[in-house]
């Protein structure tokens, strides 16, 4: 769906993006991760043709990025708003027409979405008269009104109340089911783990990691096991950090070059093994670990 090759962008002496390569397959939810100021928004703006990259190539569905792609992308910026004095209907019509829908196409789509998100009664109201939640729904509709094959959402859940965030999340999953490719830029890892199929991480203008969530997690397996022992026969080595609760001893151990089976049989000599499980890092832990690693390096 989207290929980015060797993309560079700098503002004066400030490098915002350095040699970015990305590949997003069709129909996936792609998490674009990174701390604030990493270059995510710059990358998204370049894909949206709001600004131009200095060098590199961007391909969408096999075509070099060009002005006709504007109609194929739906973009919800992090900084977003609506015309406060404009009526819901007029506003949606304006955004739909700017995305090259005809008047009658736009009419059908707007009716469909107002009905679907249950705000049909508010169509003739001005944005300033709506509750914040209502306005957020209108904002979301304006992003997807032209049913773009590529949807780019920059921090989509920030500023949304939990009910609306859930609603938006379900809509995103539904769109994905229909074949829409979604790029989700966020620094909220819980939504990444829940929604994304693929991720890429950007820090300090460079891509530091990408792949499917499973691949990423696999490559960041720290080879540490969490262990619970009971009925101790021998005292445990004092260098292990142990938490005892009702006669159960909980601790973690690295493999340190052994196979899991070797470690397990070693542990069995100390007592009865109640639990032996590989510690899988959360995306959040990987994120923090990676950001720190690149900062120190």
């Amino acid at each position, binding site marked *: 769906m989207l290929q980015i090759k060797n993309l560079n962008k700098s*503002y*004066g002496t400030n490098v915002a993006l350095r040699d970015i390569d990305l590949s997003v397959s069709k129909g996936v939810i792609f998490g674009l991760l990174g701390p604030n100021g990493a270059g995510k928004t710059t990358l998204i*703006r370049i894909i*949206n*043709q*709001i*600004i*131009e990259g200095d060098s590199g190539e961007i391909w969408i569905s096999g075509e070099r990025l060009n002005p006709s792609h*504007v109609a194929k*992308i739906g*973009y*919800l*910026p992090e*900084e*977003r*708003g*609506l*015309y*406060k*004095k*404009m009526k819901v209907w007029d506003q949606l019509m*304006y*955004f739909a*027409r*700017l*995305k*090259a829908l005809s008047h009658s196409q736009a009419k059908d789509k707007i009716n469909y979405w107002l009905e679907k998100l249950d705000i049909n009664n508010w169509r003739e109201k001005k944005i300033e008269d709506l509750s914040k939640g209502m306005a957020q729904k209108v904002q979301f509709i*304006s*992003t997807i009104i032209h049913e773009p094959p590529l949807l780019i959402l920059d921090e989509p859940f920030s500023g949304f109340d939990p009910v609306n965030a859930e609603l938006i999340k379900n809509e995103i999953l539904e769109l994905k089911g229909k074949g829409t490719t979604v790029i989700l830029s966020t620094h909220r890892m819980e939504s990444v783990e829940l929604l994304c199929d693929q991720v890429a991480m950007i820090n300090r203008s460079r891509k530091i990691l990408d792949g499917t969530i499973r691949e990423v997690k696999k490559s960041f397996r720290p080879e540490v096991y969490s262990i619970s022992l009971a009925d101790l026969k021998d005292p445990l080595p004092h260098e292990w950090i142990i938490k005892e609760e009702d006669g159960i001893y909980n601790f973690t151990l690295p493999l340190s070059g052994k196979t899991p089976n070797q470690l397990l049989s070693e542990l069995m000599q100390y007592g009865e093994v109640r639990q032996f499980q590989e510690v899988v890092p959360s995306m959040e832990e990987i994120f923090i670990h990676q950001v720190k690693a690149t900062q120190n390096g």
Partner: protein
Amino acid sequence: MDKIWLVIQREYLARVKKKSFLLATLITPLIFPAIMGIFVWISLGEEGSQSLRIIEVVDENKMFFLESSEQYAFSFSDIGKEDAKQMVQDGDRYGFLYIPKFDLKDPEGIVFYGEDNPSMSLIAYLENNLRKKIEDQRLFESGIDPKIINEVRTKVGIRSITLDEQGEETVNDATVNYALGFLTGILIYIFIFVYGNQIMQGVIEEKSSRIVEILVSSLKPFQLMLGKIVGIGAVGLTQFLIWVVLIGTLSTIVMGYLGMQMPQQTALEMANPELVSTMTPTSDVAEIMQVLSGIDFLGLVLSFLFYFLGGYLLYGALFAAIGSAVEAPSEAQQFMFPVTIPLIVAYMGLFVFVLNDPDSSASFWLSVIPLTSPIAMMGRVSYGVPWTDLALSMGLLIGGFLFTTWMAGKIYRIGILMHGTKPSYKLLWKWIRTSQ
């Protein structure tokens, strides 16, 4: 192109549909007649209710006689200064005029005592009367009969006629040209300020409410800026046209009403200015009509529209650039200076140089430099201007607004996405240089 058209439509409809637009459009043309009406009504009321004011005259020369008017009666009771003062204090008299004994060659010490500040017109009336009396007296003393003087006094009026190369004669009157130049110049000045500000507010609204990033993901910033400028300009033109129609209709009604009360001769002249030009003008109205008929109105209207739009586009782009650089109208102040100054220079120049001497070199420069020409040139156009000057000025104005639009576009495309940076001239310059 389609997208610019959509933006123009939105900007236009969003403003025209507002109640405030309807109110301003309908009420403004009524304000001037209404204010005039109020003044007329007040003065009529005053004339009716005002009692005759009696002014005591204490003349120690025993020489002056003042004729009473509708408002003031003069009494000559032959009393002393102190008695007269007392009468004013008691409220028996509105005031008293004290004329001490003086040498006619050097009249000094004349004082008006009143219970309140006398009006300018009363003082002028008294001064005129006394001066005339003294002059007559002195002429008489030097042996000239005042009657002869009165007979000799003549009223002179010069008609000015321009003669062009073909020998065509046009009657003109500097006052009429002055008024036309003044009116059209001021209109352009006001239009640029009011609608330029609307552009700026609109850009700030889109930037501060964060709509702009959504918009520029659908169209180019330059299209957005141009659409906004054109859309708001169209609002202004609409408003202007409605005013012209309204004022036209209103004045036709008023003129028609006044026409019925006018002497037939004048009414005839007004109705038929062609006829008048073959006759000797007999009244001021006819004179003005004749002058008006001599002005190239098509040329005037066309140049007005050109400078109206050219000036608006030139400054509109600058206002848009300012709006894009700031986040709130209050921040815009620091950048308003370079935009306001040339406008004010043009406005002042119109009065000081152009209207008084349309052919001076100051007038020439003011009317060709694009920043001042939209306002200053109107002052010259009404008097008639060499076509070479007009062509130069128009050419430079077109070049000028292309340049400001290009420059504003560069500032705009970066400015609208900048948040949290405090803009300065240095930064704006950097934006102009760095954007592709």
